[in-house]
């Protein structure tokens, strides 16, 4: 196996350790408790610091101000067009990026020559902050949600492609011999043997890809856009509304925590009992 895809490998190499940790009784509860304690502790420090005047409220307002503001913002009707815009961008870039990544990963596996040509570019794209190409996308597509979606899709597609490809190359050859010996068709070999066998890698790519889509979407809205949650953060920042800005930040953090949790649960359900 090559070590040319550092992220792809890092994303997957972590897996066994996670699994082993999960098998220790009660460790889930312990880590959940630890998380709650940490969050509460951080909140308490922020609260005390703001009230005691360790910093001015423009830097970090008291959580007791941010939380009600968040509730208020989410309850207000003007919040939803922005949320919808960001949500659409996120959803579409995940769908496009994941599909493109699966397709490319499978294509590179089927045609290793083509894969070897593109691999260095894909791997080096990992190191390039693709947000840099946002001005070009704006010139080409315009200041609208499509320029965000196109770039975020690419950001999602890269880890998906590399991980799908790595996963397919890591399949034990005997699985393919088995598929041939029981006369699986090409599509049966791909969908019923090869892709399920590569699933742990594909999932690692999916988790990276979804996170990249969120980062990309919010960052691009933040720089130039006329709507979206990222745009609101920028707007509130420029109008010195620290409480409002932190409220929106909190919403985005909540979305990312939710996404990660959903993927984690889906992964556990799909891959459970696969490796003891």
């Amino acid at each position, binding site marked *: 196996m090559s070590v040319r895809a550092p992220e792809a490998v890092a994303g997957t190499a972590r897996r066994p350790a996670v699994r082993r940790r999960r098998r220790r009784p009660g460790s889930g509860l312990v880590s959940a408790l630890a998380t709650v304690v940490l969050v509460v502790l951080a909140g308490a420090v922020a609260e005390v610091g703001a009230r005691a005047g360790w910093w001015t409220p423009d830097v970090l307002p008291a959580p007791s101000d941010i939380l009600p503001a968040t509730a208020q913002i989410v309850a207000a009707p003007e919040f939803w067009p922005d949320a919808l815009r960001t949500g659409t961008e996120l959803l579409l870039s995940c769908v496009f990026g994941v599909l493109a990544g699966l397709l490319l990963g499978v294509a590179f596996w089927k045609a290793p020559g083509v894969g070897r040509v593109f691999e260095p570019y894909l791997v080096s794209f990992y190191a390039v902050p693709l947000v840099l190409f946002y001005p070009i996308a704006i010139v080409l597509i315009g200041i609208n949600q499509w320029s965000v979606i196109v770039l975020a899709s690419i950001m999602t597609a890269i880890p998906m492609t590399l991980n799908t490809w790595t996963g397919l190359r890591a399949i034990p050859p005997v699985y393919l011999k088995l598929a041939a010996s*029981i006369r699986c068709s090409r599509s049966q070999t791909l969908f*019923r043997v090869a892709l399920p066998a590569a699933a742990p890698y594909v999932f690692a790519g999916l988790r990276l890809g979804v996170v990249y889509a969120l980062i990309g979407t919010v960052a691009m809205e933040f720089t130039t856009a006329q709507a979206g949650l990222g745009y609101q953060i920028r707007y509130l920042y420029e109008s010195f509304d620290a409480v409002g800005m932190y409220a929106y930040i909190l919403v985005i953090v909540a979305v990312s925590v939710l996404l990660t949790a959903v993927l984690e649960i889906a992964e556990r359900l799909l891959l459970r009992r696969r490796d003891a």
Partner: protein
Amino acid sequence: MSGPGSGVTLDDVRVAFAARDGDGPVVAVDGVTQEIPARGFVSVVGPSGCGKSTLLSVIAGLRGATSGRVEIDGRTVSGPDRDVGVMFQEDSTLPWKNVTDNVRFPLQIARLPRTEQAARAQDAIDLVGLGGFERRYPAELSGGMRQRVALARTLAMRPSVLLMDEPFAALDQQTRLLLGAEVRRIWGETHQTVLFVTHDISEAILLSQQVWVMSYRPGTIIDVVDVDLPDDRDASVVSTPRFNELQNRIWEKLRAESMRGFAQENQVPA
């Protein structure tokens, strides 16, 4: 399906492939003309790298012969056939399927009716002694148990020819003896035609009716030994004089070949 027991005929089979370092083709199998009678149990022994697995792949239709012909039940082999079951040395159980689903997989691919799938899978699982483990996943089973799953999966197809490529080579000695006895028992019940590839001489004698001894590259059959031990033999025959005679005869042939193979594989490149 032609029912249990089809004869296998090999007619001057030769397999050559391009060498990795590019100097000329490597001849893995050469001039193999042999026959396995219907319902016969034949083992192939040979030094490692002698092309015995290649020969099996050709019979399985997973690889084409460079020249020569393979016939099963009178029909020329041109590709994999559902009537020919193959069992591999490596663990081929699919880790995302439980035991039942692993065994059912080829039946699903063959689009058998669901009730038929379930019945056949259960029969095969019971036959290899995996009853009670139906819902377990491969990760929860030992290496020997996983090979039982692979065997059950092959048997569930009810093939008339069973090709086994060193199926127990990766297991410990005790498990191997146990599974060998199981294969023998199952063969007594199902009466498929079996070709069993191994590098273990006593395993070959214990299991089969006939042993083919293969030379180092190019792999040719240098001896055919009929095993005239009682059909209901068990592991205790290893201490009989006849077993020793057979073992010595095969070892005499194999020793020279193994030495030749060892010398060639460990050659210092000029």
